[in-house]
């Protein structure tokens, strides 16, 4: 029998997904887009993120203990459930492939310039596959062990860099203009990437009635994390990081000097990041497998681990050109995030709520 998850494990898993995304891309993209207004935009995104999470959690409270697939089945039968399920599977596989590619690209650029990327992607995929074979319980427990270290690392990076900070970088405070910073900048809400997974958790929770609490704690922690990351990068760099292909947070670690013994701490940061990124890959894979298991009525999803990973591996290898990768990172993933995290769940929740209302009060 599958073990039910505690609130602590769920919050950590959601944060892990966001951390991975923020470290790899979203913090960099946000700063590239809104420049000096990024700190203010982050605050705005944070408020909006908390608000949307609250609304969605409240809506999902009408169906305590039911995940989004169960609710879609209630709304539109097996057909809708299958459509929604496959939609999420495709989205999550794309995210998995993108994660794999971005992580491998960063690693190759930093440490293995002479190694073919296929080996790095293979290493990460194999590790993900082995971990997935240990079962679902281990993924969430391990994530709970790692997230506090990652969270602490971000604060340490922030503290370590304070002496290099240039507060003037946040001016002009509205960046490229109000419209550009706050209207267009709101699309960067995809920094809340963990939110996509929140509505798959209710059926796995020990206390499903506490989903709102989980959602709010996650949003608040995510905001704190985002603001620290963005502030760290913004105060440290002016325009130089726009041209770098490396994750900006990694570059910021290079500036830290902890005495004379440790010259540069970036290797230690990479070590910690690898733990986090593979955990994120595993959480992603877990949801792909769970959705497939749910829509196909399989009793065990283990045989699907390597086919799913191979698919992601193939897609990751196929993303050769920078332009394709840029399009996926900056445009497609944003749109897909908004569709699968806000639009689809909102439609399903509202539809199911109305159906329930009219069913019992015709």
């Amino acid at each position, binding site marked *: 029998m599958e073990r039910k998850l*505690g609130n*602590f494990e769920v919050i950590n898993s959601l944060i892990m997904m966001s951390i991975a995304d923020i470290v790899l891309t979203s913090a960099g993209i946000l700063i590239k887009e809104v420049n000096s207004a990024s700190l203010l935009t982050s605050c705005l995104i944070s408020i909006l993120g908390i608000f949307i999470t609250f609304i969605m959690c409240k809506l999902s409270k009408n169906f305590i203990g039911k995940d989004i697939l169960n609710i879609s089945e209630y709304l539109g039968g097996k057909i809708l459930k299958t459509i929604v399920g496959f939609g999420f599977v495709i989205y999550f596989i794309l995210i998995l492939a993108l994660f794999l590619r971005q992580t491998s690209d960063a690693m190759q650029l930093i*440490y293995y310039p002479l190694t073919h990327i296929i080996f790095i992607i293979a290493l*990460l995929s194999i590790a993900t596959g082995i*971990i997935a074979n*240990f079962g679902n319980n281990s993924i969430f427990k391990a994530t709970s062990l790692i997230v506090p270290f990652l969270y602490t690392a971000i604060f340490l990076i922030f503290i370590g860099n304070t002496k290099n900070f240039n507060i003037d970088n946040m001016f002009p405070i509205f960046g490229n203009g109000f419209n550009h910073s706050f209207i267009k900048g709101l699309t960067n809400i995809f920094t809340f990437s963990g939110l996509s997974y929140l509505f798959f958790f209710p059926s796995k929770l020990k206390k499903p009635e506490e989903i709102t609490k989980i959602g709010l704690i996650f949003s608040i922690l995510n905001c704190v994390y985002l603001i620290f990351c963005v502030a760290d990068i913004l105060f440290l760099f002016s325009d130089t990081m726009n041209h770098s292909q490396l994750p900006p947070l990694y570059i910021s670690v290079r500036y830290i000097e902890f005495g004379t013994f440790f010259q540069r701490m970036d290797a230690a940061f*990479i070590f910690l990041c*690898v*733990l986090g990124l*593979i955990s994120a890959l595993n959480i992603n894979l877990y949801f792909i497998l769970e959705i497939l298991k749910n829509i196909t009525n399989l009793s065990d999803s283990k045989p699907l681990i390597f086919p799913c990973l191979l698919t992601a591996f193939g897609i990751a290898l196929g993303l050769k050109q920078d332009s394709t990768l840029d399009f996926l990172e900056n445009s497609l993933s944003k749109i897909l995030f908004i569709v699968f995290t806000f639009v689809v769940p909102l439609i399903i929740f509202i539809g199911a709520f109305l159906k329930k209302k009219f069913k019992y009060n015709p």
Partner: protein
Amino acid sequence: MNIKELFSYHPKQYYNFELKPTCNALQNFEPAPKQNVSSNIELNLKYIQSKYQTNINSDIMIRTFNLIAQNRTYKAFLVYIDGMVDSKLINDFVLEPLMLRSYSNTYTKNSNQLTSENNYNISVKKMTKFNLENYIYDSLIPQNNLTKKTELNKLVESVNSGNCALFIDTLEIAFDIDIKGFKQRSVDTPQNENIINGPQEAFVENIRVNTSLLRRILNNENLIIESMQVGEISKTQVAVCYMQNIINPELVKEIKYRINNIKLDSLISSGQLAQLIEENEKIDIPTLLETERPDKCSKFLMQGRAVILVNGNPYAIIAPAVLIDFLASPEDTNLKTLFANFLKVLRILAYFITLLAPGMFIAITGFHHELLPTELLFSILASREHVPFPIIFELILMEISFELIRESGIRVPAPIGATLGIVGALILGDAAVSAHIVSPILIIIVAITGLSSFAIPDFAFSFHLRIYRFLFTLLGFCAGFIGIGAGLLVYINMLCSMNSFGVSFVSPLTSSLSTHLNSFFIKPAWKYEKRPGFIQPKKKYAQPKISKKWRY
């Protein structure tokens, strides 16, 4: 030898023995059919003789004699195993009363025993028919542990365990007399779990001595010691000990269920039993704690865990066990909080050094030079200047040499062991550096790793670290920190996937339950209020909020 023989042909004689499969192979795990004691003593005697094959078995003793009661002679015999019984007890308290006193207790022809009772001043005489069975049980054998048995199989089991069986003609029962008297090791100091501050007693091979050691420490009637047998042939006695008022009953049920459902011929040791009742078959990380210390067992019993003892083994199994238990020393609770915590942190550090140090060294020297100060980096590179081998070869060579020294140090006689270790390490290390086979810095890494592995209190646990260390070394060599990071995450997930009797192996690290007795840092003695929550004990509190009543 004559000349004819000298020149004659003698074909070469080869001694050839080949073990062939036996044609009447026995492989039956079903229990033997029941057979009861017969009233005909000859049948019983033949059964015992054939069961023990007394014509070839030299230590099985069958002593036949005559028992006279009521002027009638009954044939009788005793069966026991020489060396397992106390001869003095047999002579003085079994044979003497049966053979000598029975002569003095001769009765008249129609003698029925008379007993009288006084009720309401009326004397009533009851006629009790003479019963040989009761007479022997009540009057002849002055033994505290004497039982009547009807099944021959059970009698044979008792004789095998060191008891003596008494068969008497006409009786359909036999007496099982406890006169065990084999030589055994006395209670001694622990051999492998030494501490400075605390009790210095260790378990021995005899299960009864071990249970008495636990009873002596806990002094409570709630300590239950349930006995069961494992092994179709060996019938090894196994005792499950627990505090009835503290332990979760489901845990006891599960332990008994697993032990009762082991089908094998023989159980020799507690290590073997631990493997048979563990949940994790594919992962070679121990999930049950083994200890030779009764005080450690008592501490865990009071937390709500179970202790399993195996006869013939000086180690007890503690179930369930979690990761932190393997890094705790029995001394922790006896020391001041600060010292105990310092030692615990040191052990946790040793855990990571044992597992990761060689891999990290290879990763840093191969991929992440920037982590080291330039001077140190130059010094490492300079020390490796004359070494012709790749660093991975150097490291694995030294690690294997270290393991060889350690293994040979254990196997050789004790007085030589320590010398061998020191001489081996010093001479080998020095010679390897002088011959430019390895660099001096590598010797330091290997030595620190080796020392750290000795700081892990549990031998089985430290063993798994020694093996996994090689994997991390290879990962560090192949992919630097990324390889080690991926490997470490797999390892963490492996630990997280493990359970020990339904308890997560990484508890309480990932649970929010209050686990004062077993949390990461040790609390002062007056703060052990709650028992570990992850064991779900019946009694949640170990002491009141204020235990130092004298102060408040």
